[in-house]
């Protein structure tokens, strides 16, 4: 007689007697586990290191102007020199140094914004999903209203009314971005709430706080990690767009977006002035997106995102 709770098939399967053909089929159906994106991790690690060590790595002061040295091309082009490895911009400032310092702005904006937004959004999602009913309805209406508000419009308004600054950029993006976390997490919590272990936790006398922090939150962490990684890249692009429009990090602080804006009219004659910061954005965002995709495939294959 088999022990209670274990049906004969699964007992045999566990013993490895029955399941040989089925096991092979299961192995074939299971999506091939994708390799760890080493290159992406390397790029992200490199830029993080550069951002932290900017004062030591930067070959020149990113703010030093020298009008005699305007638009010097990068070292590998004709007329380039080792004094400015990646050339200079329209005010003769060293582009490599500006890209190095600019990485601080981009990475900090990306990470801080996404952390703020995900913490708040997850909290809203957990509360809405747990309590349901009227709480859920109200919170989700606010979420919908937030989602329908164009991020850049709010950031532009803030930049004009309060003045452009790093804090305002972070706030403006986070104030909109949390809504997406709230929606996704709430959806997951609704599914979890129907499962037995939540009911059992309730029967065991667990309170709302305990159920939310000990049972619901850990079960949504995978999704959170995936969303956070995927959105760092998006936020870096939005921050750069804002700096580009003049509503982001105010000059003379070097930011990739404003570097592109300043070099804009000279793209055909001095492509490096806006081409190279553009390349930096592309590399970082690409790395975060590829890493995020890999995390999703590994941790949460069902998650859909844009």
């Amino acid at each position, binding site marked *: 007689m088999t022990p209670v709770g274990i049906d004969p098939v699964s007992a045999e399967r566990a013993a490895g007697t029955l399941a040989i053909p089925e096991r092979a089929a299961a192995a074939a159906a299971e999506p091939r586990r994708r390799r760890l994106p080493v290159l992406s991790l390397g790029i992200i690690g490199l830029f993080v290191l550069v951002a932290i060590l900017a004062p030591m790595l930067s070959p020149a002061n990113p703010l030093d102007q020298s009008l005699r040295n305007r638009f010097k091309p990068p070292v590998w082009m004709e007329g380039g020199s080792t004094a400015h490895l990646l050339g200079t911009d329209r005010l003769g400032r060293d582009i490599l140094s500006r890209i190095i310092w600019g990485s601080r702005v981009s990475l900090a904006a990306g990470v801080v914004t996404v952390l703020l937004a995900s913490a708040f959004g997850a909290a809203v999602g957990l509360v809405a999903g747990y309590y349901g009913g009227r709480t859920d309805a109200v919170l989700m209406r606010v979420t919908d*209203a937030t*989602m329908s508000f164009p*991020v850049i*419009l709010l950031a532009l308004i803030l930049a004009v009314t309060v003045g452009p600054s790093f804090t305002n950029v972070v706030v403006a993006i986070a104030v909109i971005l949390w809504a997406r976390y709230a929606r996704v997490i709430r959806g997951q919590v609704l599914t979890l709430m129907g499962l037995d272990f939540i009911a059992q936790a309730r029967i065991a006398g667990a309170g709302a706080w305990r159920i939310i922090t000990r049972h619901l939150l850990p079960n949504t962490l995978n999704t959170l990690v995936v969303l956070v990684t995927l959105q760092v890249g998006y936020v870096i*692009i939005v921050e750069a767009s804002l700096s580009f*429009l003049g509503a982001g990090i105010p000059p003379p602080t070097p930011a990739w977006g404003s570097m*592109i804006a300043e070099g804009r009219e000279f793209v055909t004659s001095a492509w490096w002035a806006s081409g190279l910061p553009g390349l930096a*954005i*592309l590399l970082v965002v690409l790395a975060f997106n590829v890493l995020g995709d890999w995390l999703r495939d590994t941790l949460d294959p069902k998650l*859909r995102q844009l």
Partner: protein
Amino acid sequence: MIRFILSRLLQSLAALAILTVVVFVLARTTGDPLHMILPMSATAEDYANARQYLGLDRPYIEQYLSFVGRAVTGDFGTSLRARRPVMELIQERLPNSIRLAAFAMGVSLAFAFPLGILAAVWKGTGVDRTAQVIAVLGQSLPTFWVAIVLVEFVGGRWQWLPAGGIDGWSSYVLPGFTLGWFVVAGLMRLLRSGMLEVLDSEYVKLARVKGVVEYRVIWLHALRNALVPVVTFAGIYFSILVTTAIVVETVFAWPGLGRLAYDGISSRDFPVIQAVVLTTAAIVAVVNLGVDCLYALIDPRIRYAR
């Protein structure tokens, strides 16, 4: 179904109501609008008169109600800069934005559908890999950077296509492609993952076992169901499109709503900003409402879930 539409309509109205409060508060907390309207030489008496004339001396709640009352009838006041009714400006610009957005949507659908479906059907082949590269690049390249490169090279140096303002259908090509590029990437990924999931499902296997021709399996059985997640995300796509349009219209000097917003913000033209924000939000709300109704029509489970 009618009950569902009505409740969704109420929700949209509630979301818009929240937004009017936000816009009103933002506009009022950013300083005395009289400083911008009255000349430098204005006396305290002029200020008092103007305040009474514009109703700024009344209680906030009364001001808010009259603001909403006028906004509902399409009266957003007079632009501080253009000295014309804001509604006129909006009516002038909105069609240009809608045409551009429609063109961009057309472009992205034309690219995303074949690419997404073929990438799923021929998973792991060169087509699939090319599509993936396009998708990741599309989500990692900053729109404004692409826009600049196109303006300066295709429109400037080579002069293949017009890259500023509206001058015949060819003006749509560059801004339209720039705007559609990001959407192609997201849409294609959603279609691909949706198709892959459906193609793996039991009923598609059954259809194949029954001997249904492969192209019917793909186009009739699989695609219809793979479209459901696309419809879910259509609302979010649209608000991303609106956000991106601000940047694209600014770079391409496109006389649309986004450009109007940017100009309004850089000249602190508050009536214009309020009007653009509320118009945009109303359009996004209407589109979302439409999407939800469409969704409920396709998938009856949604109607009863609420």
